[in-house]
């Protein structure tokens, strides 16, 4: 089967088995290794990409279903010169540890913050359940996101000590 994938704005011809996962094609064929292969069952969110702007786990997406869709991977979110606000907040709050979950975390939470610019701590925690992290214990990531809140949001008592 031949189809054209739109990946980070570039058309990419694909000639393989349409049942292969997008994750496998990204990592093995295209060497876009920023998308991480962790649980392989749609549970951890480390392989999150955006399909037409919506976060999806790429390990469960057959490439054959993606003709015509805009696929954004972590490599397409920003570049070394211009980080997104979410990436900047994560840097500024020193929340990264091993780093394996963060590409997915960035893609999910960037979308969530765009849709919910002033979330509560509880809303952020719910939104983050699809992105598992083994290192950080989450709360400092949430502090970083709260700092991005709209005017009057993110009062000091919402941020951990």
């Amino acid at each position, binding site marked *: 089967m031949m189809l054209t994938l739109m990946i980070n704005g570039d058309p990419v011809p694909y000639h393989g088995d349409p049942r292969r996962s997008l994750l496998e094609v990204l990592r093995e064929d295209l060497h876009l290794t920023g998308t991480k292969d962790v649980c392989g069952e749609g549970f951890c969110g480390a392989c999150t990409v955006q399909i037409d702007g919506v976060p999806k786990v790429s390990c469960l997406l057959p490439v054959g279903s993606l003709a015509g869709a805009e696929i954004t991977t972590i490599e397409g979110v920003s570049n070394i010169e211009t980080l997104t606000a979410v990436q900047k907040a994560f840097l500024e709050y020193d929340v990264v540890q091993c780093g394996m979950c963060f590409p997915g975390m960035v893609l999910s939470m960037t979308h969530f913050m765009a849709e919910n610019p002033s979330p509560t701590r509880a809303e952020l925690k719910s939104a983050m359940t699809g992105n598992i992290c083994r290192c950080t214990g*989450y709360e400092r990531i949430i502090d970083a996101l709260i700092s991005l809140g709209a005017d009057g949001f993110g009062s000091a008592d919402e941020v951990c000590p």
Partner: protein
Amino acid sequence: MTLPYPPNNAVMNLPRRDAKDKLLGRTRYTVDDGGHGTLHAAARRSEVASGRIVKIDVTPALSMPGVKAIATHEDAPGLHGIGIADHPLFAKDVVRYHGEPLAVVAATTVAQARAAAAAILVEIDPIAPVLTMAEALAKDAPLIHPDWATYEILREGAARGGNVAWEATVVRGDTDAAFARDDVTIVEGTYRVGRQSHVPFEPRAVVASYDDGRFHIHTSTQVPWTVRHVTAKVLGVPEAAVHVTVPAVGGGFGLKFDCSLEPFAAILARKTGRKVSLVNSRREEQMTCLSRENADILIRSAVTPEGDIVGREATVLMDCGAYGGEQVFLTTMTAHTLGGNYRLGSVKIASQAVYTNTPPNGAFRACNGVYNTFALECHTDEICKAIGMDPLTFRRRNVVGHGDIGATGQVFEGDVLRPMLDLAIDTYGPHERAKKGPDGRLYGRATTVGTWFIFVGPSSATVHLNVDGSATLVTSGVEIGSGTMVQSLPQIVAANLGIHPDAVIVKTADTDASGRDLGVGGGRTTVSIGAASQEACAEVRSKLLAVASQMLQTPQDDLVLTQGRVEIRGRPGSGTSIQTVIAQAELEHGPVSGSGAFTAPGIAAMPGCAAGHFIDAIDIPVFAVHDCDVAVDPDTGKVEILAYRVIQDVGRALNPRAIHGQIQGGVTQGIGYALHEEITINAEGAFDQTCFSSYRIPTALDTLPIDYHLYEGAPSCGPLGTKGAGEVPILNVGATLACAVANAIGTPVNALPLTAPRVLGLIDGLSSGVDLSHLSRHWHENTIAFSK
């Protein structure tokens, strides 16, 4: 050693230099390194837990598409291990656990390698497996290693025998006399914990090549020098033929403190002459996880009405699985964890690593300490109940302080735990009586103490001072996510040389470039590599200042290194730039560099009281006080943590913000262990939990902001008085949650994890408790060394 600079110069919340690329998805972990021309490998593993190998025929697999080479036991004759060499790389005549490697295949693609691995003809005559420690210690138990007595001993002095791979014992004082006193209350507790899986997001992975007669192993490890040593040992090649490099590691937590996949890839690289990548699938990673071991624990204490612990006898059985591994070493730790925290009039401790036909276990953050602290603190609360004493009062009275002796007779320096407890009481208030809330839930609180240690041992460092005024730090340290390599070490070097940490280049681990190191684990990196780095800096300073002294016509003692300059003390701007001095030094002597080394200072224990121990005393004790409030739903057994507080002995906090990250993450891992991470072993000897949907690690909804206080100033031989801070946060989480739940429901807790069904069973009185009928109440009968 007096410092040539104010210690606070090394203290700052330096951001991580590796964070940006990690956030951009640009960091290349070992799993990301398998470009064009790289072969891919897959393992064929045993699907029975115990059996005699009749046949392994690789012929049909060899002719399959893409297959380049297959390796079996013939390619790796050596045995490896810790303390005893009991572990072959591949099963040879017998299989001892479900998942044991039988062969590995290298092929052009992963799919081809897996298909060929599955096509290897394997015939195994199954033998009934020994799956529990109770079975393994039964009188007529089959021996998992019938040839145990012939194995090479790598460390002398331990009692071994039967299915006991290793025994460590402590005997100090006369417990028989203590237990026979007519004024004591005897309190007994039995405890059991299951395994915990690390679940690093990067599984164990390696890329190996074979060039110019040497192996190059690029791997996701915490221990490059162990990988070098073990690979050479099992392959039967000189250690110098193995070169190990380590990129960013996507999580370790102790799992990568052992050599694992590396020798397989090395063999295949030599056979094919190609670069070979071997990555565990998630299922393999889970099924062969070198987990935190399951353990059975019996503690008996003789306590006076005033609350003195005059005698304590304990036996801890640690399941090592099919091979001894880390558990052999970790038997040592029981003396300092279960035997820690409190002053003991007399003590007997037996700690055994027990073979079973289950996957081998390994090291996991605060290994051994986590469950022994759970058992000890639950037991302590049960003692308080038995003698009618407030648990905080009892702990304040009995925690080890300055001049007190530990289980093995080491003399502790400094009062640390008691002031930490006082701080907890002052800050969090005294305990209120457990109560039922208006919502029908049961509310409880607990405060526990914990003793851990910093695992010191050898480290080396070289510092090169470059002509541009930057410095290059060369060590075998590995960045596993904890931040040591990108925060504390550059901070230490920068403070020593008067430059900014951004001007300190930190070389990634490379055994061809750096000296030997014990590895990244046990909270040792900042301490051991930091101390070696500080010594290397001292040599650099003295070389530099000798030249500057001539240039500035000022005695060396009056010169200071600050802000990239050599200044005359008290006269900012009087000196010259560090680059000028380096240039002059090069003219006179050549480039400026220094080297440093560190090892365990070797704190003394009481002679003769510890046997089978790898260390007799702990060089750098670390203490923790944890406190929490919980609410338990009596209808469902669900535990909610309402508040969690940590006071952690850190010596000196070099990067408080990074330590906060370790505390938040470490406590959360402990919450998983305490409440919902559970591994069960089925009749086939395999884990039931082989994926994320069945092994429940914490999500954002399972944790809460951890309140914390960094307790500074306790004695430490670490550089600038530091103690490692990343290992310890998990230490007493299981203990604290268990004690709080026990307090809330009014029933002792004796097993983890406290899943809702288990808690409900305790509330309803349906839990039958922990059956430790394989352990005797006569302590000596549980030992090899003292059994009569």
